[in-house]
């Protein structure tokens, strides 16, 4: 054993421990930080279709973001605004129509497997009529973007300031299943806030493009009590 072996091993151990400590607290996806979290949802709702292909405005479903702290998940009845009519994909509907014409009957309501779950939740029968024998059960979505309980984040202010949803939530329009795109760590929030608070006259570019609209004398807050109280 060389006389240097022990010191080297000693130094290496220290380095590993130190690095581990730094990593655990950094922006890299490690335990305690849910970057890339993409859980299974009770219904295979596709943001890609709704927000991407159909170009629906985020606020049309997550209307809470405009007036409340929480963006909220839309109530199932809101879905019925469209899905009272759209019960499956157009292809399937057209096929059924063609088949029904061929067979000389009224086309049946074809309900996709996933939408069936929505109708079940609302206690609707096969013809989308309220079935009094069925129990209405709220849909238990899995929450993707979680903040600790001591963080009072306010959607309303960010929307009012013209911040694009994608700035924090990422390219939702291309996500089949919703995925956490940002660490949502305090440092991540502070990056943007500090940049804009330091120089209120700066361009205020946001990572997703767009700009923050601030009134006169207003500034981006970096006060602790903005979120913690």
């Amino acid at each position: 054993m060389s006389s240097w072996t022990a010191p080297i091993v000693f130094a290496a151990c220290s380095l590993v421990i130190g690095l581990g400590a730094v990593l655990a607290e950094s922006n890299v996806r490690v335990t305690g930080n849910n970057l890339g979290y993409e859980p299974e949802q009770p219904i295979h709702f596709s943001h890609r279709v709704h927000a991407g292909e159909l170009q629906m405005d985020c606020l049309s479903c997550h209307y809470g973001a405009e007036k409340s702290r929480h963006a909220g998940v839309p109530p199932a009845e809101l879905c019925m605004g469209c899905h009272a009519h759209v019960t499956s994909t157009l292809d399937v509907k057209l096929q059924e129509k063609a088949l029904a014409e061929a067979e000389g009957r009224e086309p049946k309501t074809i309900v996709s497997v996933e939408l069936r779950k929505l109708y079940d939740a609302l206690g609707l029968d096969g013809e989308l009529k309220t079935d009094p024998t069925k129990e209405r059960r709220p849909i238990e979505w899995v929450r993707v973007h979680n903040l600790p309980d001591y963080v009072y984040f306010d959607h309303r202010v960010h929307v009012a300031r013209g911040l694009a949803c994608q700035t924090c939530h990422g390219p939702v329009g291309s996500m089949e299943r919703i995925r956490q795109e940002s660490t949502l760590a305090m440092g991540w929030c502070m990056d943007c806030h500090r940049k804009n608070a330091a120089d209120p006259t700066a361009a205020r570019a946001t990572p997703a493009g767009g700009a923050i609209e601030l009134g006169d004398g207003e500034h981006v807050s970096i006060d602790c009590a903005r979120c913690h109280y």
Partner: protein
Amino acid sequence: MDDPHAFERVIDGDKTLTQVTHDVFSPLERRGTGRWWAGFLLAVSALLLGLIAVAYQVQTGIGTWGLNRTVGWAFDITNFVFWVGIGHAGTLISAVLLLFRQKWRTSINRAAEAMTIFAVMCAGVFPLIHMGRPWLAHWVFPYPNPRGPLWVNWRSPLLWDVFAIGTYFTISALFWYVGLIPDLATARDRANGMRKRILAFFSLGWDGSARTWSRHETACILLAALATPLVVSVHSVVSTDFATAVIPGWHATLFPPYFVIGAVFSGFAMVLTLMLVARKVMHFEDYITQRHIGAICKVLVFTGTIVGLAYLTEFFTAWYSASPYERFVMLNRVIGPTGWAFGIMFSCNVVVPQLLWFRRVRNSLVTVFILSLLVNVGMWFERFVIISTSLGRGFLPSAWASYTPTLIEIATLIGSFGLFFTLFLLFCRFVPMIAAAEIKTVIARRHANDDVAPEAAGAAARPEAPESSETTERRAA
């Protein structure tokens, strides 16, 4: 003491190098004595009691202490400051006296430094467990984190404490260890088997080479030069916990020197306590002599008097400030509800040490031992009085409150003594308690002065060896 060499003659019974090695190392190679085991078991029991108390406290909450909305610190920070203070004597002996070339320090510096390290460990426990959420204690360190990164508040004296105590512990421990390496090598070279291997690991391959000795001596002088301002800064920083606050009774510029001298005072008292016990138990009468004890007594009477002056200065400052709050706090300290604590503090720290002016008192080991204990008690109460009575009656009378300790706090205090003595007793058993290499240097130097070869001198001195330390003292005088 007329004899200019009295302090130079560090040890009694002119020893040879061989004898020194034997005297210092053979106790480590024997089994522990009954007295050692009794002391160790007592200390470990106290430590266990403290551990249980701390575990309960961490599990249940700070509410298990007697603190309240007005008195947020009491036993915890009192113990902290007390233990930090205890630590100061060790550094002072090892560093300041080294710089002043005081040879008499060599017999006691190792133990005193060990005492420093253990006392700082005991002290360090309290800021940790006094936190409401000790599991987040690492937040006091400025490390990169995902919170922004959110750094620390450099303006907080508590943060200064972190750095002061951290540096103090690090430097003291390494200084101590560096000094220990040659003696560990001696122990290694006397040992066999596993013991040798362990000692070989810790002695870092010391071979007594002149090159190493040269660097070693330089390093020691440098560290002493660093440790001297460090030790002054540490208690100054600790005192700023109070001095920078707005609370009457805390808010005083006097505090840094006052605390430093108090620390030296309490530290030397603790050194005295420990040395008196150790010389008896470890049979180090020849190494820790009446001269050492006398010297420490003189330090005590000196520092005790300065401490008394500091107390009076506090009163003067309060009076001279014309601040009704400051004046009230001082008066309340003396004749308020906790005036008894002030009484203990003043009599133990100012009145009692004055007895040491008398040689007869200094020469009576039992009296000196009791005095040293009283000073320890008094210095603990000094911190208690400053912390808890000042907090209890601050600006608004509506918020005044008194403080009573709980069993958990008392058990924690006992536990800190348990930790200290456990470590110290382990130190006595496993680490050469006297800096043998330094003693050897002193012996060699003395013989060099006398132009006598050590062997011969040793042989010549042998008939005188059994002479009691008291007669030596008399002769020296």
